[in-house]
């Protein structure tokens, strides 16, 4: 029997519904684990202990009165510290916004609260989400629960560490070049970047308007689908919000892999990949084939430009977001983020428009490649999880000796805007989780979640947890 703090939301929900488990006990458990473990993880920036307990008591009474709201009712959830919670600071991992008290909930915060979720805290992240390692010079690095000397990846590093260590049962992250999927991969979680526009960004700090996605991180793909059901929906206040909704995100769970057409890229996604990671992903593809999937190779010689286009769009949008802060509070940035932004100020309008046009070109190629398959399966992160020391830049340097290639694969699907999921597909000899990415066509989110769920049920790699 899995310890309570490592159970999935889907396992816990029936216990709460039946009254066997109280939201108060569950919240106290989460807060006790934060108090005991977060000194070594640094996952939580703002703990909302009193509010969480008060909320848990309210929800316990509501459930006892027979007003059960659904699968997230009474479940402790964490938020990356770029989601607004009314009355609480949204720092975005920066000192510039240290005292930025939100006057209202983000759209997704409100949706989670409406579903009965209990917000236990705001979670550590890379400064302004500008980086892939999970390091933060202002608040310290989030540490990987599987080995606290190693990075969590980022930028949603605290979200991944908190869920992986059993400090909460799910979390929200944001993903502009892989910031949900990379941390999920190296912390042994499922992390889902939905189709662009399916989840509102209102009340979420921008990094890059046309590449930013909000999504869930949880212990299973099924839990991600459950969270998606709560947070997705059109929001007129977000100009990028889609009017179309892909339907229930859990609609295809339990359908298995029989007949699913799985594409394996013949180019780029297996080039320069660590041997243990490649072996784990290819073995997982065979597991999918054995479960009835139809596996075929897909040529995509142009795929290497996906990450390039992602960065080409992201960089000028980010500098536009930061224009006023760069003028008013330049010295409050870390040297690394300041250098990124100041270099990005040289990007011309023509370069930005060229990147946007290249995105159209790229997405037509990807659309054609996905015409004959339902999903693409690739590694999430190409390298083994580096240590914090390896990723820490020496004085005057922009990057440490590791970490520069972490987002090479994930960023491709920020260019396409299509749904993309990372699931655990094995472990390295060092005992670190390995992530496999499953990506699909725009608005076919449920298909991607179906494949991830079926794979997890077949392989069961997600049932292992850190020893803490």
């Amino acid at each position, binding site marked *: 029997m899995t310890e309570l703090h490592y159970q999935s939301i889907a396992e816990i929900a029936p216990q709460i519904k039946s009254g066997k488990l109280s939201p108060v006990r569950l919240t106290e458990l989460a807060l006790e684990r934060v108090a005991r473990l977060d000194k070594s993880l640094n996952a939580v920036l703002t703990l909302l202990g009193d509010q969480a307990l008060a909320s848990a008591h309210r929800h316990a009474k509501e459930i006892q009165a027979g007003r059960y709201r659904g699968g997230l009712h009474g479940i402790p959830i964490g938020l990356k510290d770029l989601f*607004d919670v009314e009355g609480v600071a949204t720092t975005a991992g920066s000192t510039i916004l240290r005292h930025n008290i939100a006057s209202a909930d983000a759209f997704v915060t409100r949706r989670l609260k409406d579903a009965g979720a209990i917000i236990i805290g705001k979670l550590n992240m890379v400064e302004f989400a500008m980086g892939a390692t999970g390091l933060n010079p202002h608040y310290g690095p989030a540490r990987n629960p599987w080995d606290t000397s190693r990075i969590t990846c980022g930028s949603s590093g605290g979200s991944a560490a908190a869920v992986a260590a059993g400090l909460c049962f799910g979390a929200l992250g944001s993903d502009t070049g892989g910031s949900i999927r990379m941390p999920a991969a190296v912390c042994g979680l499922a992390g889902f970047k939905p189709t662009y526009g*399916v989840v*509102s960004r209102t009340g979420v700090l921008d990094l890059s308007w046309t590449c930013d996605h909000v999504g869930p991180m949880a212990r299973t793909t099924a839990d991600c689908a459950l969270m998606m059901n709560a947070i997705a929906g059109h929001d007129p206040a977000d100009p990028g919000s889609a009017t179309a909704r892909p339907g229930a995100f859990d609609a295809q769970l339990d359908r298995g892999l029989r007949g699913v057409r799985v594409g394996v890229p013949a180019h780029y996604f297996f080039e320069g990949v660590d041997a243990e990671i490649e072996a784990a992903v290819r073995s997982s593809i065979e597991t999918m084939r054995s479960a009835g999937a139809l596996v075929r190779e897909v040529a995509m010689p142009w795929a290497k430009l996906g990450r390039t286009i992602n*960065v080409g769009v992201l960089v000028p949008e980010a500098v536009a977001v930061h224009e006023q802060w760069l003028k008013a509070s330049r010295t409050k940035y870390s040297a690394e983020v300041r250098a990124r932004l100041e270099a990005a100020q040289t990007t011309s309008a023509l370069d930005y428009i060229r990147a946007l046009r290249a995105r159209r*070109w790229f997405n037509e190629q990807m659309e054609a490649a996905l015409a004959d398959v339902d999903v693409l399966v690739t590694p999430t992160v190409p390298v083994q999880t580096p240590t914090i020391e390896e990723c820490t830049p020496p004085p*005057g340097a922009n990057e440490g000796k590791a970490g520069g290639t972490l987002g090479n694969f994930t960023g491709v699907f920020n260019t396409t805007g299509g749904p993309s999921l990372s699931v655990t597909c094995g472990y390295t000899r060092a005992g670190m989780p390995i992530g496999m990415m499953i990506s699909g066509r725009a608005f076919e989110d449920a298909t991607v979640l179906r494949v991830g769920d079926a794979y997890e049920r077949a392989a069961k790699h997600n049932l292992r947890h850190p020893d803490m």
Partner: protein
Amino acid sequence: MATRARDFDELSRIALALGFRTSSEDYRMIENRLEALEAILAQLRAIDVSAFEPASTFSAQPGHARTHGR
């Protein structure tokens, strides 16, 4: 702010004299980032994008999300 010049110490002295707190290390880091960015832009310039308008391919159009508290 960004510069292609190599004499970072001298640039830093000039910047400080003008009231900017930009150290030679800042200039080195900006220079490193510029080199990486220019490599990306060079790859983008090599793509023939003449047939493509810069719009999204699906119905969710990009735009600015409103945030609270700023």
